């Protein structure tokens, strides 16, 4: 557990840190943060509860409990990570635990979008490469320096390319991953759009878009 949580802000072009490997396909957001922890009106206390039930079941041997992983910040996962519920509480719990980037074989879509929206870049690699990294980081500490611009990662002994959606990469490099301000810039177009939509017109005098 890290002490104080400082959220990422602005342009993100480099991330470096120690890898933590979590093995398993289809790890859903209920497992990342069980529903009972969603009873909150802010995300502040979620970090300590990440993977709560899985960790309890493994009685101290879960990767997030191992002593050597406590200062890790790059999570290595397998396929379809983050499937299920749209709860942003899942990446919010991960980032508050200390995760700043995720590398995996594939990600569920809403989870991926949530990660981008809070400043966690998610990279993909073929299954074999992920298995190799997980195997390597099991025997020794793996520190990675990720360069977003070149979509590459390097360590003392390794050097490899990472894949990331072009649009996500651009958003991190420009700092526009926090989308609100970008979206707000098109205020006029938005006004025009709402007025042009057929259903705005035919719903005008009924209860659908009633103002209270």
């Amino acid at each position, binding site marked *: 557990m890290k002490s104080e949580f400082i959220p990422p802000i602005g342009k993100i072009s480099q991330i470096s840190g120690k890898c933590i490997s979590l093995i*398993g*396909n*289809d790890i*859903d957001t*209920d*497992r990342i943060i*069980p*529903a*009972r922890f969603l*009873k*909150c*009106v802010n995300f502040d206390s979620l970090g300590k509860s990440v993977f709560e*039930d*899985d960790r*309890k*079941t493994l009685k101290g041997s879960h990767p997030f409990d191992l002593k050597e992983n406590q200062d890790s910040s790059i999570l290595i996962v*397998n*396929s*379809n990570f983050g*499937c*299920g*519920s*749209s*709860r*942003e509480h899942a990446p919010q719990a991960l980032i508050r635990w200390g995760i700043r980037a995720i590398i995996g074989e*594939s990600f*569920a879509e*809403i989870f991926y*979008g*949530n990660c981008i*929206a809070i400043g966690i870049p998610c990279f993909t690699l073929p299954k074999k490469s992920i298995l190799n990294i997980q195997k390597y980081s099991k025997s020794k500490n793996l520190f990675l320096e990720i360069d977003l611009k070149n979509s590459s990662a390097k360590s003392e002994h390794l050097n490899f390319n990472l894949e990331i*959606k*072009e*649009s*996500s990469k*651009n958003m991190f490099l*420009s700092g*526009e991953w926090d*989308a*609100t301000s970008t*979206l*707000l810039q*098109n*205020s006029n*177009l*938005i006004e025009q*759009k*709402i007025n042009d*939509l*057929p*259903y*705005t017109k*035919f*719903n005008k*005098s*009924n209860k*659908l878009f*009633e*103002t*209270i």
Partner: protein
Amino acid sequence: MSQDTLFDKVWDLHKVSSLPGGSDQIFIGLHLIHEVTSPQAFGALKEKNLKVKFPQNTVATVDHIVPTDNQSRPFKDNLAEQMIETLEKNCLENKIRFFNIGSGNQGIVHVVAPELGLTQPGMTIACGDSHTSTHGAFGSIAFGIGTSQVRDVLATQTIAMNKLKVRQIWCENKLSHGVFAKDLVLHIINALGVKAGVGFAYEFAGPAINALSMEERMTICNMSIEGGARCGYINPDEKTFDYIKNKLCAPKNENWDKALLWWESLKSDENSIYDDVIKFDASKVEPTVTWGITPGQSVGINQQIPLIEELPPNDQFVAEEAYKYMGFKPGQLIKNTPIDVCFIGSCTNGRISDLRIAAKVLKDKKVSKQIKAFAVPGSEKVANKAKQEGLDKIFKDSGFEWREPGCSMCLAMNSDKLIGNQVSASSSNRNFKGRQGSPSGRTLLMSPAMVAAAAINGKVSDVREFIN
């Protein structure tokens, strides 16, 4: 790249701009909010000193945390009370319409919006809940979003999103007797896998889909996300329009005529291009039950839990995990698996037709002695209708508990939970580890009719033996 599908048409209609990063800015016609994923979004708005841009396009209800036994306020659970109070306050401050408990219109957000006529063809709909895909049953493009995107919709009525590819899932023939929409969608997810839909919108089409009622279509689209697809939809038709007509928020009089004219033009063109097309024969689908820890791990009622070597290499890892967690043996028959708890409800199967079919199975029968069984209507409207029809009495006479509307044990955020390693027969949508409130609880997903049959026999049963 897809062309001229309903998805393409609705996407293009709602596109506000191409963003510098390469994604699109999409206008959201209807924004639905609830107590779990919205408070942080309102908090973020305040922090940024922003206002809700179009409060009339957002509608709220409360569903996830509400107790289903005693709904009097304040709730016994302080945290739940704090969440509903926060939603009440946020709606009041921002002039957002809120269908609260007791309004007659409260319920699970994906049950409420269609029954109020809020959900309409050709709209974009977003909600901080993955089962927003439900609304696609009306030919709207509807998807779940995270809390940061809820903030974006509140602030701008738009989100940044990459356009999805479109896969048509064509369902030939018709479902056979005793086989329901839930069985079909579980069958589809089993065949394609839980991540096949990533990056896709699923268009469900074909004679078997056309034959489904609107409520059954909602069950299909609801589960799109369990197949990895953020959005699932069905081209609107007469059934769609009939369902909407005269609903509280539906267009009326000359506006109805205008709406109908537009809606009738909204469908994928006959020669539209899909990124992918997959065909199923609906007549081959059996009552389907999950045996594992993902909604893709299911078998027909008369089948065995698959052996590890029968599964594709990529599915073997999760299967091993599932055998262990569920305590099932590969090769074991799913039929006759003992059950502890039966749950009928959720945004997947908590509508009036779901309660009707379950009541038909339960009528003049008794729930097996060792079973705890409860039915949770999807909304106050559903509950009232069920009472009018005397369904609540049938449930209660059989030994089911009859509860107040909410999400309940689908995700167990209230006090409805499995205990220890209990096995539930559940009409909900997810059988993930710990999903129903106990870290070692086990969930078997099935249709509401199958849950009713399991309740009577105390074990997984073939509902076709109960209905003629």
